[in-house]
């Protein structure tokens, strides 16, 4: 393993000092002269036609400066995620949203908006807006939405199915199942999760007199927001500037155009800057959640453990608008078909409308909904075959050199075997699997393997660009379009540049996420930034290095090909005493040679370099209350190469806790009129510090040849393992198989009852 001077070191976050002293400003901290405050009036009905809207009372309130209703909505239908992408990538673009529609389709959908001198006046103004609603029949579950005669959420979508089902097939599953010695069929359900970043959505918009709008927004995707907004607002991308302030967490909740159109339109109408912040209840009830899912899974295996068939039928609840829906359905197929070698595959996903809030991106995007079923199934198949759960996975998982069935990309790095073996060793797998506990509180151990992509190639125009310029002091300024929502990408990119140039990471000044200044990047999602932007940045740094070499060769009066670079010093081969430092060369170039040294690069990755992980858990199950406690986790992750090990650990630890929340308790529920029941922290339980198990992390580094210094992504994969690992551990502890998430006391007790009824071993 190569030892580097910056890459591979747990370099302190560049922005840590600012964050720990609150120097860092978030969107909500922005203040501009004349700035107004906005609030949104939201539909109390799950499905209704909007009639008359009387805003006269609100308009008369002193301090109200602008009001928007359906009349102000641009007459454009869009998709908050995909509008503007070329048809090479989005073959079936469904554009079903408007800024203010004449029909509202979920409780909480915006109906009107107000900008006023302060928030209190804006809130009071909302109360004075009078709206006539004509309620329409509604539908709240995918099963109900698919039933014949169900009310239509969108008239254009018969049966409430969005577009066409996503379908993939290879070989012949019926034949494969017939050849199997063991066939297992089950149904699994996963709920709606809310990412709950600690910072709610916030946006500030301001127009200049040339018709250009600047929008500071808490987003993961500045450039994608720009091109979707171009369509929504009817102005071209160059007239829209999106600036990311520091963002307080995303996780997918900030991965589409959301409050930006309303904010921009209010600012235009008022002729003043407008700030729009969401409350936490709006976050829960009116921003995107994970797609609730039902998966019917059939898998077949031979006696020796080889898989012969996988048939997955997925139904995704996309809520009132499709937005990310078809993307989730498509990307889910990658891990489903890609993780295990299987000659006969069938995958079908239906994306279904309901009159609930729009579903969207959330960490684990699609992989979450399919790998909980697959990893539960693998354990059950192993049991039927008398195999250890590790053995069946090691036998079947994809290996380096093999093609992904869906994308045909050849796998170039895979550390999964090492993850499994090392993880098993550290947790004491084999010994603990033999142990059976008695009594009302049972202990169990379980694991799961997860595969997740680094970037969304081939489904999106994956790319990142970088620009670097040298300063006279030998520091450099890196301009990158990436979105740092807290995961630490700016520091990782600085380390890559630092490594390339032999300077310290603190010598790399990073500006990120401003569509006017920084070059294009698709954003923070699909665990893509280290893998894609990392390479763009490395290439740009390499160009800077070669130009510094040219200047050095002039300074040293040596031939370019004779120069040696060593720890930030450059000298002619054989004459280290003549060495000059990067700062000296930079100053010489700028002030003596009179050239500016800059490097630029645009990078398209060759594929999507999947990351892998094996996460092991020990749990305690109280069979009287159904309460599950995770005692210990050993988490082994193949990250290709850890650019910053401390930040990788932070991602794993954070992902495990969020994953435990998703697995054990998180479930956004709605009542019979489509109102969210538990849209608050006190009732939608997210993990607190008392939930933290003992966590041991293992970083496995097989070195991905197409990633900068071998790096792959890590952000999404880390949340997906807890649900199947815990469910597998619950089974080991009690013999009860829970197939409905969350693994709440209620669902665990039900599974325990069912297992007693069926006479399964307890």
């Amino acid at each position, binding site marked *: 393993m190569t030892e580097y001077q910056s890459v591979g070191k747990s370099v302190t976050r560049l922005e840590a000092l600012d964050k*720990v002293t609150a120097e860092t400003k978030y969107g909500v901290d922005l203040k501009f002269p004349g700035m107004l405050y906005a609030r949104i009036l939201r539909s109390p009905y799950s499905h209704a036609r909007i009639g008359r809207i009387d805003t006269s009372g609100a308009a008369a309130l002193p301090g109200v400066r602008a009001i928007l209703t359906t009349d102000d909505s641009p007459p454009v239908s869009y998709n908050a995620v995909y509008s503007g992408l070329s048809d090479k990538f989005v073959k079936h673009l469904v554009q079903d949203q408007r800024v203010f529609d004449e029909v509202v389709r979920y409780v909480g959908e915006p109906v009107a908006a107000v900008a006023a001198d302060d928030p209190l006046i804006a809130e009071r103004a909302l109360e004075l807006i009078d709206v006539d609603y004509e309620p329409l029949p509604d539908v709240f579950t995918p099963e109900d939405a698919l039933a014949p005669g169900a009310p239509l959420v969108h008239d254009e979508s018969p049966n409430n199915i969005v577009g066409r089902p996503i379908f993939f097939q290879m070989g012949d599953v019926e034949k494969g199942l017939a050849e199997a010695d063991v066939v297992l069929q089950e149904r699994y359900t996963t709920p709606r999760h809310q990412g709950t970043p600690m910072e709610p959505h916030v946006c500030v918009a301001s127009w200049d007199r040339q018709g250009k709008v600047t929008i500071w927004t808490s987003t993961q995707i500045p450039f994608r927001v720009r091109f979707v907004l171009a369509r929504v607002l009817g102005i071209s991308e160059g007239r829209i500037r999106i600036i990311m302030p520091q963002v307080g967490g995303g996780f997918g909740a900030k991965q589409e155009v959301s409050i930006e159109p309303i904010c921009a339109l209010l600012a235009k109408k008022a002729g003043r800057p407008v700030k729009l912040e969401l409350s936490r209840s709006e976050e829960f009830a009116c921003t995107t959640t994970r797609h609730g899912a039902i998966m019917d899974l059939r898998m077949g295996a031979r006696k020796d453990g080889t898989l012969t068939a996988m048939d997955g039928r997925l139904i995704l609840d996309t809520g009132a608008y499709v937005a990310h829906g078809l993307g989730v359905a498509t990307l889910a197929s990658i891990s489903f078909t890609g993780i295990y070698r299987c000659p006969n595959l069938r995958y079908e996903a239906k994306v279904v409308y309901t009159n609930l809030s729009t579903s969207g991106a959330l960490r684990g995007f699609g992989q979450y909904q399919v790998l909980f079923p697959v990893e539960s199934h693998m354990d059950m198949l192993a049991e039927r075959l008398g195999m250890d759960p590790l053995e069946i996975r090691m036998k079947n998982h994809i290996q380096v050199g093999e093609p992904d069935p869906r994308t045909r990309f050849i796998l170039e790095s895979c550390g999964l075997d090492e993850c499994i073996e090392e993880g098993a060793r550290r947790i004491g797998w084999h010994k603990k699997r033999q142990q059976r506990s008695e009594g009302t509180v049972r202990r169990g151990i379980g694991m799961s393997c997860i595969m997740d992509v680094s970037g969304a190639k081939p489904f999106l125009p994956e790319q990142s660009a970088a620009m670097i310029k040298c300063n006279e002091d030998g520091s450099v300024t890196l301009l990158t379009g990436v979105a740092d929502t807290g995961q630490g990408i700016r520091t990782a990119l600085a380390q890559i540049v630092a490594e390339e140039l032999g300077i310290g990471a603190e010598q790399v000044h990073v500006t990120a996420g401003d569509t006017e200044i920084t070059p294009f990047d698709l954003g923070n999602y699909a665990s893509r930034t280290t893998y894609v932007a990392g390479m763009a940045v490395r290439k740009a740094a390499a160009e800077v290095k070669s130009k510094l070499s040219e200047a050095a060769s002039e300074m040293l009066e040596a031939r370019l090909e004779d120069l040696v670079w060593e720890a930030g010093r450059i000298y002619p081969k054989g004459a280290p005493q003549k060495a000059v430092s990067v700062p000296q060369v930079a100053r010489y170039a700028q002030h003596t040679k009179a050239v500016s040294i800059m490097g630029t690069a645009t990078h398209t990755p060759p594929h999507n370099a999947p990351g892998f992980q094996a996460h092991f858990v020990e749990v305690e199950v109280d069979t009287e209350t159904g309460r599950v406690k995770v005692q210990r986790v050993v988490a082994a992750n193949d990250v290709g190469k850890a650019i910053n090990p401390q930040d990788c650990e932070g991602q794993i630890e954070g992902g495990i806790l969020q994953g435990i929340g998703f697995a054990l308790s998180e479930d956004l529920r709605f009542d019979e009129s489509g109102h969210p029941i538990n849209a608050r922290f006190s009732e939608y339980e997210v993990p607190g510090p008392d939930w933290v198990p003992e966590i041991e992390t293992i970083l496995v580094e097989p070195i991905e040849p197409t990633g900068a210094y071998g790096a792959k992504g890590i952000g999404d994969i880390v949340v997906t393992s807890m649900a199947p690992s815990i469910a597998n551990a619950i089974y080991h502890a009690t013999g009860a198989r829970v197939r409905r998430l969350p693994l709440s006391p209620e669902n665990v007790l039900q599974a325990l009852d069912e297992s007693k009824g069926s006479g399964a071993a307890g």
Partner: protein
Amino acid sequence: MNRKRVPLTLTVNGEEVSLNVEPRQTLLEVLRDELDLTGARRGCEENFCGACTVLLDGVAVHSCSVLAVQAQGSKVTTVEGLAADGRLHPLQEAFVEYGALQCGYCTPGMVLSALALLTEKPRPTEGQIREHLIGNLCRCTGYVKIIQAIQAAAAKMEGGAP
């Protein structure tokens, strides 16, 4: 709407401040909107998440649930008051060193909550740290490095909180 203001005097980060506030304004709103102290943040509306945590007469409170007028005559400490003479408080140093922050939104609240704990219990057990931090949510870190940082700061501060 009655927007009449009433006088309020309190000490914020060691400095006496006199201003006029609306009786309905929370301490959080006054700190942020009137005094430009942005470290305390809003993360929920139900006195739950702790992003708004400040010290009120040394006690960690959710400033979203304290009316500003209730702080009349009191001493308020926000994260901006911690770095004395430009040097970080040992807790802040430990958070940085241990990677105990990612997006940073919850960090001021966490640091102040930890400070209140260490003032009362200079060498808390890990269990005591976890229990004390209930009331400060973090969605990024999984709390692991936060707990480690607090333990490290406690060890460094041994001999009394500065």
